[in-house]
Each structure stands twice: as structure tokens, then as C-alpha cells.
């Protein structure tokens, strides 16, 4: 029995402002040294699944750079391995930036490549929700229940504050069979109902025929057009996920997700299984004679000479003497110079904040400085 993973590298329902205008959601930095996709890819590695295709839509250049040959996830392989499916993969032409019409349409676009795989089952997942799951357990549940499709849901909300609008909710009977699927029409924070966390398991041949069928009827969305419609006829079962959860679709949930990792107890759950990412060969972090650091995550290659409080600092960041960084996310190779002040801000890669400058946002509306900005 063999399995393959399919990961959507984007989400139809996200608004991360400048952070995702030039990169796929899956390529966004998180937790200091990681990209979002590292967490779901590592789930596959830790579940012993080494055949994974990542569905790219637009702006996939940094995603491709990050993934490389897949070797860092032990997925540089002759059989299976890691592949990025770009919209051009099946049409050898650059003349139209073809955007998929929905999650099923994206699969339809890559049906040829999906069919080529010798895997029997597919684990289909998004990038917007981070969780830690051994897919083998879910597959086992799938096989035991005799389900056509198994979808993961949660009743808890460990680590997240609210269920965003547009999320699919499932209603189950006692045997955990899905009775119906509803799409939330507004944000919900009362933690009621079973929230689908964007993971499902399905036999590959069934997926192929569902894709072909949906496409011929011009139905393009997995939850709306397939799961919701077919719940009465197909045997769709739920699989409860009880672990931690991080949801990233807005600047504030992105901030929340990073901040959540500062809680040692929460972090110990997130990093219980190895999370793989691209190796940078950087040196250990250096702390200077007059630095002050409190409740922060600091990555390799940083030089901390100033003050860092309640922040997540990515690789190769320099925080110079007298500089103060508070309640912020600082991405790779950014430099905060002497006596600069950064609060409630998200600084993208290669930003420079010059001597004494201040970048101060509001807790409810953090400032975002795009890549290579100089302040």
C-alpha cells in the first residue's frame, strides 16, 4: 500500500497584504527559521510518505527556490520524491497565466501527473492551517471505516482564536459519518461545531474519477462541489484531530501563530516531531555584551547586541546596540541599526531600519515592511 501527498501551496481565502503579494502562502516565513510549507511537508516525512506534489498557482519562484530538489526533506528520489506542479507543467507555454478556477480545477490541471503516480491513496492538504499529524493514523482510520473519503476535523481550537469565515464545517452522526458540510458564512469564535482542517484521505482512483466528473460538470471546488454535494451518497467519514492548530489567513492570525510558538509548552508540541527546513549553514547566534532578550525566539546566524522582547527573529538578523525590537516578527537577514525602535511590526527579508529610526505599529494593526525596504 503506498501513499502520496498533494499540497495546495496557496489559499483562496487569505489576506496577508504585502507578505504574500510576491510569494505563495506556503513560502511565507514562520517561527523564525521555517516556511509554512515546512510543517506540512514534515508531517509527510514523519509519516513515512516521500512522494509529495505541491500545487503552485502564481508567484511560485520563492517556493521553488526553497524546496530545491527536496533533499532537505529527504525527498530527492528516483521513485516518488518532491515535485512542484506549476500551471505550466502540462501546457508547455508561457503565454497565459492560467489561474485555476478552484481546488478541483487545480487537480484537473495536473491529472496527468497524478495518474502517473503508483500510489494507491492520496493525502490532500492545504497550507493555511498548521497541525502535526501522523497521516498513517488517519489512513488507518480510513481503511478501518471503509470510507470513500475521510476528512480531518477538530472540535477544539488549541492555539487559534477563531474559525475564519469560509471554513468548511462538518456534521457527523455517531459513527462519525459526515451527514452534511456547511461553509461558514461568517467568522466564528464560540468554538462550536466541527471544523475541517483541510486534510483528507481518498483512494487515488476515486479522486481521479471525482475530478473527471466534477470537471465535466464545471464544478471546481472540493468542499462546495464535491464533499457537500456527495455527502449523502458517498461514505465520507470524519477523523478527529486533537492536537494543536495554527491558522494563517490574515496578518493578525499570522502574528498570533508566531506568538503562540513563544509559549514553551505550545512550542514543545509543535516541535515534538522533527520539522525539516532548508539548511543555511549559519553560525550559532551571538549575544553581545549589553544585549537584553526576553521571551523571544532567536535563529542561527543572528547577532543580538540590542534588546529583543516578545519577538520572533529569523536567521541572519542583526540587532545593533541600543536597538529595541518588541512584539514583532523579523525575517531573514534584516538589520535593525543602532538605537532604532521596532514595535508591533512585521519586517520582511533584507529590510534595513537605519540608526534611530522608529517603526511602530499598533497591536491591532501591525506595520508590514516589504522585502528590501530601507527605513
Amino acid at each position, binding site marked *: 500500500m503506498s501513499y502520496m501527498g498533494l499540497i495546495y501551496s496557496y489559499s483562496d481565502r487569505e489576506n496577508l497584504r504585502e507578505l504574500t503579494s510576491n510569494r505563495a502562502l506556503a513560502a511565507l516565513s514562520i*517561527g*523564525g*527559521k521555517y516556511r509554512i510549507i515546512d510543517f506540512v511537508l514534515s508531517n509527510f516525512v514523519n509519516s513515512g510518505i516521500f512522494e509529495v506534489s505541491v500545487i503552485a498557482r502564481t508567484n511560485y519562484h520563492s517556493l521553488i527556490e526553497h524546496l530545491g530538489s527536496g*533533499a532537505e526533506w529527504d525527498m530527492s528520489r528516483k521513485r516518488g520524491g518532491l515535485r512542484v506542479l506549476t500551471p505550466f507543467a502540462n501546457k508547455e507555454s508561457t503565454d497565459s497565466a492560467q489561474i485555476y478556477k478552484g481546488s478541483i480545477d487545480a487537480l484537473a490541471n495536473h491529472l496527468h501527473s497524478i495518474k502517473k503516480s503508483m500510489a494507491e491513496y492520496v493525502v490532500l492538504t492545504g497550507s493555511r492551517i498548521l497541525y502535526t499529524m501522523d497521516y498513517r493514523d488517519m489512513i488507518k482510520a480510513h481503511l478501518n471505516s471503509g470510507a470513500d473519503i475521510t476528512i480531518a476535523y477538530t472540535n477544539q481550537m488549541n492555539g487559534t482564536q477563531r474559525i475564519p469565515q469560509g471554513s468548511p464545517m462538518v456534521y457527523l452522526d455517531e459513527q462519525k459519518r459526515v451527514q452534511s458540510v456547511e461553509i461558514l458564512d461568517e467568522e466564528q469564535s464560540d468554538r462550536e461545531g466541527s471544523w475541517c482542517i483541510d486534510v483528507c484521505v481518498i483512494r487515488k482512483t476515486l479522486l481521479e474519477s471525482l475530478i473527471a466528473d466534477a470537471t465535466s460538470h464545471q464544478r471546481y471546488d472540493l468542499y462546495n462541489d464535491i464533499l457537500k454535494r456527495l455527502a449523502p451518497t458517498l461514505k465520507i467519514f470524519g477523523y478527529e484531530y486533537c492536537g494543536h492548530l495554527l491558522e494563517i489567513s490574515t496578518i493578525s492570525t499570522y502574528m498570533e501563530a508566531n506568538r503562540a*510558538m*513563544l509559549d*514553551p509548552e505550545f*512550542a514543545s508540541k*509543535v*516541535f515534538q516531531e*522533527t*520539522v*525539516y*527546513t532548508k*539548511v543555511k*549553514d549559519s*553560525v*550559532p*547566534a*551571538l*549575544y*553581545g*555584551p549589553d*544585549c*537584553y*532578550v*526576553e*521571551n*523571544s*525566539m*532567536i*535563529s*542561527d546566524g543572528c547577532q*543580538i547586541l540590542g534588546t*529583543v522582547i516578545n519577538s*520572533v*527573529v529569523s536567521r541572519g538578523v542583526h540587532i545593533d546596540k541600543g536597538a529595541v525590537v518588541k512584539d514583532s516578527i523579523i525575517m531573514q537577514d534584516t538589520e535593525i541599526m543602532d538605537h532604532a525602535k521596532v514595535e508591533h511590526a512585521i519586517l520582511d527579508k533584507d529590510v534595513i531600519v537605519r540608526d534611530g529610526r522608529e517603526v511602530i505599529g499598533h497591536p491591532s494593526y501591525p506595520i508590514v515592511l516589504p522585502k528590501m525596504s530601507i527605513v
Partner: protein
Amino acid sequence: MSLIKKKDMVAMLLAGGQGSRLGVLTKDVAKPAVPFGGKYRIIDFPLSNCINSDIDTIGVLTQYQPMELNAYIGNGQPWDLDRMYGGARILPPYVRGKEGEWYKGTANAIYQNIPFIEQYSPNYVIILSGDHIYKMNYRWMLDHHMKKDADCTIAVIEVPMEEANRFGVMSTNENLRITDFEEKPIKPKSNLASMGVYIFDWPTLKEYLIRDEEDPHSSKDFGKNIIPTMLADGKRLFAYKYLGYWKDVGTIESLWQANMDLLKENISLELYDPRWKIYARNGNLPPQYIGRHATMKDSHVSEGCSIEGTVENSIIFPKVTIKKGAVVKNSVVMSSTTIDENAHVNYSIIAEGVTVGDGAVIGENTNGTDAVLISVVADRVTVGSGSRVESGSVVDSNL
């Protein structure tokens, strides 16, 4: 199906050393596998020097406790040495004909691997050891070797005259041609010490290795046999002066000192240089977490650490936990070690997987003198709550 391809220079890295002066730190691993500098092992330095010098074919000669070293080197990928031709290759002793032979000396180890070297038909062979911390461009040394039309070039460094007796010491003429070489002389004639880095013309070396092997009285060693014989034969041996940072980390004190050197500004062992990276195998750990009560000063800290206590003038390896109230000063703490609440660690090397219990004190300077004595706690030892370890002690079982 021949895999033969010419390489201009092949490196042979002697990594079989037991490093017995490092005591408990080399009980289970060969010296080149000893951790250094927060995320490295000693062998990362010669391996990284090789790849940075565009030498991509390296035979790593192992013999003593190679398991961890072999696993560490693996397919060579972390050093960019996973090459189709060449790359890093572990060379253990093996059986020819009816029986096998262990490596009897540095020269014999190379002799036994003549077939490995010959695969690549190199012009030059560079002999390295896995015992030293330094950054060196071996290409520059090769340029020197070629310019001098040498048969052998030995990298040398000036050491204090009183330490010269620990090294191979040579005298040269104004042209840097070596006129005299003595291995660990009682009365050194100069302070030019061999760094244990040799470049040879391969055909010449091969001839001498074969001759030396036939000599029943030889101890099959480069310093004691090959070099003196070549000198006696009037071969062209030259010294190549190296001016950067170099440290033989063969003793507890020198290993500690070399770690502390990293914390000094303006030493030439700059690990941040993007053009001369020191590569190491990566542990896939999350970033370090500095807690709400931590005090950090003049230290290097690695991934996966969780610091709630005080860290000053220290090198902290990955996955170290330093709890609230604990104080670590002037020390090297290796990976996966836990320093419990209110424990104090000073002037110490704490090896991997150690637990230092609540309120324990390691490296008190109880003898009242100013001399720095380094305490060592061996791998996986637990130092119980409230225990006191005097400075200069070695703890190799639970206290």
C-alpha cells in the same frame, strides 16, 4: 565500467586518532568527532577547508571508534561532498588476500590506500589531520608548492619556543627550503612547528611509501620516517608559513581555550565569513528560545536551546536547557544537556546529555589560586542536586 577521472589533488584526512589526552571526551568517539564551537565537530574544519579550497575528493581514514564519525560524515552532503566522482569517502582498514591489516602508522594508513588514490591519478596529494581548528586555503599552499618546484611542502606555524617540543620542528634556509626536521625534539632548533598538513607530489610520495613499508624498522610515520628519509635523500622539501589562527585542540585546556577564542573579537577564526563557511551536519532543530528571566552576555547559543537562566562568556551547543536561576559562565556546554535551577557552572566543559541538578556547583575555584583549571563532566553523567565539583576535576560517573 570505469569510474576513473583525473583529479589534480586528492586529500587524505587522517581521522583515526584516539585523542587520548582528551580523556573522557574521546571515550566513545574518535577525536575528529569531538564537538566544538557550538555546532561543529573538529573534522568540520578540514572538511570545510577542502571544499572551500576546491578539493572535492577526500579519503577519510578511520580506525578508532568510527561509528559516530561515519554516521556524521554520511554521504558528505553537508560539506557539499556528495559528489558523483570523488566526494568524501570513509576508508577503513580492509582485507586483502587472506587476511586484514590494521593501520600501523600515518604512513602505513596512506600506503594501504594507494589503490584509492590511484583511482583518481592525482598530481598531488595533501595529507591532513582531523585534530586542529583552523581555516586555510590549501590552494594557496599548492601554488607555493608548485612555485618552489617542491617534492613536499609542509605547512608550518610559529609557536612559542617553549612549546616547540610538542611538534615536528624544522629549520629552513632563507628560501624556506627545509634543511632539518625533527619530530618532537627535546631541544628544538627552531620554533617552526609542523601543522601536520603536507602536500606531496603523488608519484614521489608513492615511491617513498612503498620503500618505507618494506623497512621493518620503520614506525611507518610521516614525521618520524617519510620526511626524514626524503630530506636525507636530498629531495626538495619546503615550508609554507601559515599566519592565521591555528589550534591543536589535543588537551582539555586547549579545547576549552579554542572555544573561548571564538568569543573574542578580531581573531582570525571568523566563522561568519560567507566566502569561507564552516559546514556542519544540521540537526533540524527549532530556533532557540530565550525566556522571560534570562540574562545573556557575550555568548554563542545554538538551535533548540531554551534559556531561562544566565549565560555569560560561554558556548552553548544545541538542545541545551538552562533553567531559571542557573548560571553558566566561561564554559562550554555540549548538546542535549540540562542545567537545572540555581545550578552554577564555571570554567567547565560539560559534555553531551549531561544533567546538572538543582543548585549543583561545578568548577568552583576552591583552591584559591588564580590558575584556570577546567572541570569536565563526561557524556550522559548526572550531577545530583546540590553536588559540588571542584575546578579541574573530571566527573565520569553519576554524582
